């Protein structure tokens, strides 16, 4: 067997072993959702919500700073 063939065989074997380790544990996870890439949609939604709240907090923070300045003068 040439070098290329050995490499491919090794790759296939290692893939198989990875799959079998997962199968052994047999714990159900959201693998389909991940393989379809839909998890990124959820990530984007959560990130937008959090960033929105942060922007709101920053604007509150600025308003307070302005009031503090007004009362100081």
């Amino acid at each position, binding site marked *: 067997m040439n070098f290329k063939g050995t490499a491919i065989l090794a790759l296939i074997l290692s893939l198989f072993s990875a799959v079998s380790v997962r199968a052994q544990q047999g*714990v159900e996870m*959201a693998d389909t959702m991940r393989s379809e890439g839909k998890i990124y949609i959820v*990530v984007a939604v*959560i990130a937008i919500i959090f960033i929105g709240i942060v922007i709101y*907090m920053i604007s*509150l923070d600025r308003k*307070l700073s302005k*009031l*503090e300045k007004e*009362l100081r003068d």
Partner: protein
Amino acid sequence: MAKNWWKAVAVILVLFALIGGLLIDVPRLPILNETIRNLFYHVTMWFAMMILMTASVVYSIKYLRSGKELDDAKAKIAAEIGLFLGVLGIATGSIWAKFTWGAYWINDPKLNGAAVTILAYFAYMILRNSFDDEEKRAKISAVYNIFAYVLLIVFLMILPRMTDSLHPGNGGNPAFSQYDLDNTMRIIFYPAIIGWTLIGVWLGELKLRLHKLRIKKLEDEL
């Protein structure tokens, strides 16, 4: 702006935890399945709450030593934010329980301990509101706050470890711990705790500044 760097740190850490918490590979454990990721969300609420309650009791002790109104205000605000995070912790835990155990609430030492702690801090808020005299309010509620903190330590940290509980990480149930040998989760978990705590501190800072403005306005009117 230079003194606000920690707010940026808070946002970056929480964003990192929110995104990373969904994307990293996690251990495949029975019962928990994909909800093991709640470690990054539900558990961090409790950790941030405990840190804020510690800050609160430190300010209460400071108040008892100094008698400064501002220390009492800081103790109250830290407890308020901590209580808010604790309520979120209870609510998120309850949702998880419904889908894992089939009920929003079960009679479990860990859950009941959390409920007692939350109630102890609600009592702190009610106690504060029941005084007209400001100095009396500050003094008595500072003493009570120390008592509430002891309850927190006992009911959140000690009792659940002494008895068996269904909660992950207790009584041999799977969870993230040194026995489950997963250090990758710590990379998200610890920044999440720091980030949410700092977000809590930010909220508290806003409240404190509002409080100071109110005091200043009252003084100006006099």
